[in-house]
């Protein structure tokens, strides 16, 4: 680590890359082992599942080369499991880089994968999934088996996306993983920033800082505006309980709390990924691995 906090070259947008193997599970050769590789615009995620149960996963930053990012993420998920890529019966690629997952047997849209993954993580009561990714936001309605009923997405604008949050983390010099807690450190919620465009919101935020607003207050005003945007998308697709949030921003407590406030409903709580729980950022990869299992079984029956 050559990064010293407080220095100007600290990369405030950088979030933790990690991988995990669930130690209470083991695999045998006859098991149906599948993998899902979700190459997002910001993060690449891979999940390994044994007979449809999660076994290991890895999360890392997507590089400039999608096939390479896919390979790296999958290898990282496999690390410490004793498994080789050859042991995987079926691999599904998803995410914006899904057509560039070289080892995949099939590519499936991330909408179907997030739906299936949310159903796996939170159970059959989930009806609405908000997936906040690096460069788009999707509101997805699903049925009790995790199938997509309808969806809406915003992919033309950075407002509210993980990328937009990274820009603000850099601007305010607050590490991205603390940004949620930080935004909640205000006594009274300020008015949201008037402009959601990240480029303009940046200018507006700098103006507010000059006016003497604290970083917390500026961040609260921005986060509020983003949460309103996401809540609008959910309302347009039609909110039905239970609501869950997947993708990187599911870890932003400032966003989650404000969406709940705006909509007037609670989301199902996220698993504690820092302890031993599942990670809602991996929902797409999990869904992909599950859909891969179904595809493999179908092919065997033919």
């Amino acid at each position, binding site marked *: 680590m050559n990064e010293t906090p407080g220095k100007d070259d600290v990369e405030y947008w950088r979030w933790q890359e990690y991988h995990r193997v669930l130690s209470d599970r083991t695999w045998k050769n006859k098991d149906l082992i599948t993998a899902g590789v979700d190459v997002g615009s910001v993060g690449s995620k891979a999940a390994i599942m044994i007979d449809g149960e999660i076994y290991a996963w890895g999360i890392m930053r997507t590089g400039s080369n999608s096939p390479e990012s896919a390979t790296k993420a999958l290898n990282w998920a496999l690390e410490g499991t004793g498994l080789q890529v050859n042991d995987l019966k079926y691999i599904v690629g998803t995410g914006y880089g899904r057509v560039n997952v070289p080892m995949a047997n099939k590519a499936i849209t991330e909408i179907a994968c997030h739906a299936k993954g949310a159903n796996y993580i939170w159970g059959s009561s989930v009806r609405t999934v908000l997936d906040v990714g690096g460069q788009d936001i999707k509101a997805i309605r699903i049925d009790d088996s995790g199938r997509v009923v309808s969806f809406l997405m915003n992919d*033309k*604008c950075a407002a509210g996306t993980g990328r937009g949050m990274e820009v603000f983390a850099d601007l305010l010099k607050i590490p991205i993983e603390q940004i949620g807690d930080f935004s909640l450190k205000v006594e009274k919620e300020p008015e949201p920033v008037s402009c959601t465009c990240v480029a303009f919101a940046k200018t507006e935020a700098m103006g507010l800082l000059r006016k003497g607003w604290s970083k917390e207050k500026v961040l609260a005003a921005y986060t509020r505006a983003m949460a309103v945007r996401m809540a609008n998308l959910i309302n347009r697709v039609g909110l039905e309980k239970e609501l869950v949030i997947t993708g990187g921003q599911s870890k932003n407590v400032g966003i989650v709390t404000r969406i709940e406030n705006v909509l007037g409903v609670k989301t199902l709580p996220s698993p504690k990924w820092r302890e031993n729980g599942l990670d809602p950022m991996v929902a797409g990869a999990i869904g992909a691995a599950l859909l891969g299992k179904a595809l493999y079984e179908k092919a065997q029956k033919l």
Partner: protein
Amino acid sequence: MITAGIDMGTQSVKVVVLKDGHVVGRGKTFSGFDPSKAAEEACTEALKKAKLTPSEIDHVTATGSGMEMALSSDSTISMMGADARAGVFLFPAARTVIDVGAEEARAMKCDDHGIMVDFVVNERCAAGAGAFIEAMARALEMKLEELGPLALRAERASPINASCVIFGESDVVTLIHRQESKPEIARAIFDAMADRVSSMIFRLGLTPEVVLVGGVAKDVGFVASLKRKLGVEILIPEQPEFAGALGAALAAASRTK
């Protein structure tokens, strides 16, 4: 009769002094932290060029996003109204006036008297305004003025999917890594922006003649891309960034009659 128009833009303040239907002086300063002071400076500059003193001006009209900060003005006019007046004054056949500024783009439909009849505006998104080109020039580590002439040298279009400044920056970086030539990248940037501006104009309906004003009208790269998207000729006045101030000065003249 002598009137003045002050355009309090987000990036710069422009002043036009009008004497009996002729422009006799212009002034321009950066808005900076104190737009009121910037307006004063621009006025002083314009009056100096016109060889006039403040007391000789019959009426001052302000326009632009910061119009309430023009302390010396007698009245105000909307930015759309000012643009429409200026467009038809400069080109009597103009029926569509497009204004692309630093942080906003708008298009006005107007009648033969320069009265605005309809308009569309983009003020919520930087992708359709000068800010987009500025951000992309930064990503390319080039000067803003270099980008336009460079784009004209492009041999083909290499589209980027940028409809957002934030994503556009990473798209440009991707093109650099792919070792795409700089003229092609520059053209891609202007094409993306012209896409955004033209879709706004098509919502309004395109009635010839078409006039383009605002600071971005000086950018040959953007003009070429917009021409291709709209499929019509575009009229551009000299010093197009002064159109708003000119429109305000024209309004001031009609208000003193």
